[in-house]
């Protein structure tokens, strides 16, 4: 038994997302293991980013359940409730993401994400970007602005702590010397790292990265793998990753889920997926008459 079966952090069941007549995600189900790096791969248009948007609340799925548990025991509660047929009361360490607005998913369920096309606050400095990410904690520290306006010491302490946290992440990402520069001024690779640092500043349980290696050169891609492993190992974090660079995926993933046309076609370790004929067929394509034979062979 693998970790994503015995100790998942995220389980997705019967997830469907339709846009009018287009079925982007079709009855998808998979789990991501606690502390794993899970990669979501598939050809262009397979629905990977749609799944991400459903998990992080930017899309409301047409149907399905997306459950995130901070504590392993929460899933037992969920299973019991499902068995009993009653409506599940989310709470405690269990979060049903399909019911929550996106800002609560980040704030309460602590799911952080990055974007395929980098979305930084370009006109703000690198440090400010990381301070914005700590908004909710700082709002409490500033007494929801009232205390801050009168300069209460609680806010000054909170502000100091937030700067320290930001400095830590800038240091880890090698951006400390650019802290006071505008984010839009950074080179592309540094912007990618900054976006990850910003996501880490919300103290996530689950980090969702949408093509973090896109546009990076080979050296930067290598560094990205090290950064992701470092984050996972040192910060008790699970990572969900969409990536087209197979080198990165095969190197760092503990678990790979392959999508094609909104359906899951393969699920397993890097080795298992790499040798799966369905995956090879989806990526490399097979002649149409052979396809039926391949599928028949696989299913038969």
């Amino acid at each position, binding site marked *: 038994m693998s970790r994503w079966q015995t100790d998942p952090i995220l389980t997705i069941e019967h997830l469907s997302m339709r846009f009018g007549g287009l079925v982007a995600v079709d009855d998808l189900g998979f789990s991501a293991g606690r502390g794993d790096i899970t990669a979501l791969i598939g050809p262009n248009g397979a629905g990977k980013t749609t799944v991400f948007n459903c998990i992080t609340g930017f899309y409301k799925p047409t149907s399905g359940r997306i459950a995130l548990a901070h504590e392993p025991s929460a899933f037992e509660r969920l299973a019991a409730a499902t068995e009993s047929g009653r409506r599940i009361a989310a709470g405690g360490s269990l979060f049903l993401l399909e019911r929550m607005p996106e800002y609560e998913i980040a704030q309460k369920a602590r799911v952080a994400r990055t974007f395929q096309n980098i979305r*930084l606050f370009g006109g703000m400095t690198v440090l400010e970007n990381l*301070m914005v990410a700590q908004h909710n904690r700082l709002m409490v520290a500033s007494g929801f602005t009232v205390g*801050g306006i009168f300069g209460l010491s609680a806010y000054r302490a909170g502000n100091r702590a937030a700067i320290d946290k930001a400095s830590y992440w800038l240091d880890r990402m090698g951006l400390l010397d650019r802290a006071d520069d505008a984010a839009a001024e950074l080179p592309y690779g540094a912007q990618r790292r900054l976006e990850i640092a910003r996501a880490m500043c919300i103290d996530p349980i689950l980090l969702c990265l949408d093509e973090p290696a896109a546009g990076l050169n080979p050296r930067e891609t290598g560094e990205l793998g090290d950064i992701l492993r470092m984050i996972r190992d040192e910060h008790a974090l699970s990572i969900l990753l969409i990536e087209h660079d197979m080198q990165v995926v095969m190197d760092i993933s503990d678990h790979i889920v392959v999508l094609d046309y909104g359906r899951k076609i393969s699920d397993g370790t890097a080795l298992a997926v790499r040798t799966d004929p369905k995956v090879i067929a989806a990526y490399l394509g097979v002649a149409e008459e052979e396809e039926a034979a391949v599928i028949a062979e696989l299913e038969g």
Partner: protein
Amino acid sequence: MTAAAPATMPGQPRRAWLPYLAAAAGLVSGLLALWAFGVDALDRAFSAGGGSLDWVDGLAPIAALLGAVAALLAPALGFALMAAAALAGVVSSIFGGLAGQAALITLAVPSGVGAVFSLVGGAEERAARENRPLGHIPSALRDSAFAAIVALALFGPLVGLRTTAGTAENLTILYRWGQVAIFVGIVFAGRLLLHLFVWRTGQAKRVAGPRAPRVTRTIPFAGYISGALLLALGIALPIFMINFYPDNGRYVVEVGILVLTYVMLGWGLNIVVGLAGLLDLGYVAFYGIGAYSYALLAAHFGFTFWLCLPLAGILAAFWGMILGFPVLRLRGDYLAIVTLAFGEIIRIVLRNWQSLTGGPNGLLNIPRPSFFGLLEFKNGGEGSFADFFGLQYSPVQRVIFLYYLILGLALVTNIVTLRIRRLPIGRAWEALREDEIACRSLGINTTNTKLTAFAIGAMFGGFAGAFFATRQGSISPESFNFVESATILAIVVLGGLGSQTGVVIASIVMIGGVELLRQLSELKVLFGEDFDPAQFRLLIFGLVMVAIMLWRPRGLVSTRRPSVFLGKGKSVSGAFVKEGHG
């Protein structure tokens, strides 16, 4: 038409020196043109006359010749006509006026055209002979002439024709071609000077478009100095003016109050537009709500100004949230349209709710402010300001008090805004302007954040409105029309979105400048006795806006000062900062 000539007839003795000036200019330019190119051109034209002269080749010298001749003849003709005008003036002022105007036109137009033709033609001629492309100056002249033609088309109907009430109570058109010529001349000369001294090195025009963004740089010390200087100037102004210019000092202080009111409104709107990036075209509604709140609360419940001031702010903030709710989902143009409509709704309700607001007549007899609720500004007697401090009563005392009151209110707005910028809510506003989706991915509740921006911006508008009501003593809905919103927005945009100092400078220029324009009687010497500079303020308004948007497309102060530093503070170039999209 009767012999009674209008008093404003051109060609009066007062302006008689103008044609002489034009004549002299034409003479000089004609001679210059001849000296520079024309001699060559003439030479060529005459020598080519015997040989094989095809007309394209001959065009340049002929143009040069004609131009030079026109440039020389025009002044002569002008002088003759002027003499005729002077003569005719004795006989009939009407004929005199007409002749004088004709003289002016005959002078200004042909001599200018002639000079241009001779310069261009001569240069083309010389370029053709030396087998090289046409140089910088002729193309500059051509471009300037084109600009002058555009200016003529624009100013011709706008300035040249003016309807006035005739003697028989009918509308007559007053022709002002002299002024048109002056405007066109200014455009031509300005364009030419720009070509010669600003747009150097042969490129006729600078290519418009984004320049390469400058790297962030250390915040100049001058930034802090200018703020301190403006503050010192603001504090010292009434003391200085009243002591040294007792005659018109009060007027200057009144203008100062007006400017400061707009500074405060600009700072309030800056929160919504500059920081949060939400384009609000109906900001004046909150100003109106603040004013009517104070007026109604004072009239019905007898509340004093000092009690109503916070209430007006709270009510305006409340209405800011009411506006905020329906527009939360809207962005960009749609947001702008809905806020515009909101501003108009408020104004129309104020105008039509006769029983409450007094309709178009507005509310009168609004209580004037007391000295912090302790002393009244009245002539002598117990509890009056003058009596308590043992001063001679003067109405200026209230004006000075109002000045410092609005200065204080504006400073409170500024200090609160600057503090909020360093607080998480302020950073969230700016982040919202930069990228709303990224904000939501970081756990920021964008609904609340937008509503807070609307509410706090509206609150300062409400404060300013209460001040406006107590200063005026009477208010009517027409004080809160769309033009006010547009003015405040223009101040924010011209000053530079998000910049506090920029708002101050823009207010001084836009509000103080227009007031100054009213006082510039010197301009009448140049443009005639009937010239009222204040009438041109919208034109100048527009010109200033176009100029600033051309040269400083991101406003006067375009750099953004970060809210937090790790090392040494640097300002962020405006090229990186987004304007927001609603």
